[in-house]
């Protein structure tokens, strides 16, 4: 009997715990989402563009577009896996899984489509430094952009922080 009572108490405690968890997650999740900053597309200042469409950005990130309109070659600096910028790039922009993205670039180099796959950077600061000193470079970093010597592109006419900006 005592064991039965203990079980009932345990079930109640579990149910209460789950309910509290749900309430906390439902109230906290939107706040957390709002708190995560937008992801900016930064390029070297010599890139002759101020705006990119999301599909153009995808073409660049999967290597289907290798040159800017000025004729300079695109150099990609991308964050290592686990970074939020990497996750947003792979899943939201390229519509792939991490494994698919990795295989896509291995296959692209193996097909002789390109000899210059994306270069890996390990922090937003490192990405900004590389972009600022490499003509034609592009990277994705969380806003606010701390570094200087880079240009932030609009995506589909919207700048980071504007309502309707699609990279976050």
């Amino acid at each position: 009997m005592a064991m039965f009572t203990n079980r009932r108490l345990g079930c109640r405690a579990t149910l209460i715990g789950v309910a509290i968890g749900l309430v906390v997650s439902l109230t906290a999740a939107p706040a957390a989402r709002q708190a995560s900053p937008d992801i900016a597309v930064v390029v070297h200042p010599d890139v002759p563009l101020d705006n990119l469409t999301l599909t153009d950005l995808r073409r660049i990130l999967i290597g289907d577009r290798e040159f800017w309109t000025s004729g300079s070659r695109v150099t990609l600096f991308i964050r290592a896996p686990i970074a939020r910028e990497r996750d947003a790039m792979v899943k939201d922009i390229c519509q792939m899984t991490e494994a698919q993205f990795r295989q896509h670039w291995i296959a692209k180099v193996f097909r002789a489509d390109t000899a210059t796959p994306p270069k890996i950077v390990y922090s937003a600061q490192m990405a900004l430094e590389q972009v600022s000193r490499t003509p034609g470079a592009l990277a994705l970093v969380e806003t606010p952009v701390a570094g200087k010597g880079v240009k932030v592109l609009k995506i589909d006419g919207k700048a980071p922080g504007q309502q309707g900006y699609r990279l976050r």
Partner: protein
Amino acid sequence: MIPARLVRACIALAVLLAPSAASAQMAHDQQPPPGEQAQYPSLKLSGFADINFADTKTREGPQGFSLGQFTLHLASALSPRVTFFGELSFTARADAGTGSPPATGFNAEVERLILRFDQSDRFKVSFGRYHTPINWWNTAYHHGSWLQTTISRPEMIQFGGRLLPVHFIGGLVEGAVPAGGLNLNYKGGIGNGRGAVISRGGDAGDNNGSRAYLANGFVKPDRIFGLEAGAAVYGDTITLTGDRDFGERIVSGYVVWHKETPEILAEVAAVRHEEAATGLVTWSNAYYIQAAYRLPVWRDALKPYFRFEHIDIDAADAVFIGLPNQDGSTVGLRYDVAPFAAVKGEYRTWRRASTIPRNHGGFFQVCFTF
């Protein structure tokens, strides 16, 4: 055939290349040199290899364990617009060695050797030895077993096969234009076609005065991201032993859905031969359709697949004499054990003619990239 000293030379070359390859890092995961501008040439070395097991009812191909291909891929930017690509393969063969009967050994082959100048996305020009871009599988997976879902290539584009020319030696122009979101890509080429042994290209020169040509176009629409569809034409004059000339025309097409939930590949090719002396025209054709699905279990590591393929050779075709027909089905499972390694198991059943009993067998492969 490959003598032992060539193997030793290749090992020595690999050892010599190793320090620069290691310092340059692999293409898989590059890190920029801090504070340095790009340096040329920038050699990157990567590779693929596979180990296989086969057991078939009637012997056709290797039985038991066999080494697949050991493939080295070299890519080097020589300047911002000029790049070099090379692909070397070492293939285990029962007759590669010397002596009588010949000893087993490895065949070394320069699979691809390409020097390309990139003017822009719209125009790139290159010269060298290619995998003929008239078949999607031939240029998507090359010799990287790890890249392809299945163990085997479709028989219509088998290495050493005769139905379609696997290699092309010459020059290519290629490029891509947005075309209103269609992303229209093109390739056009001229070069040496098939040699007197038609499974081989004209590596040391064409064996007749007629060059081969090809044209290829495909689209990758933005609105249906993941879809790719294209078509190609190829023309050549084949000169067989005994100076018998045949005009060859190939038309092909494909549709591919790149995403893995599901993955769908379908290709078709038709080959027309016309003998110059008699005017006899023959048509042979082949197609395959393959479907796979990445299951949302076990870290997305499992991918079952199925392929049906068909080859129909015109019995009057003198160029394809001895080339068998095929109706075959393949069912299998790929398991990605690690980010760069996979194991695959498959069952195949196929029939060569209505008068020949159906053959079937089980196959297993471990493959990886490095």
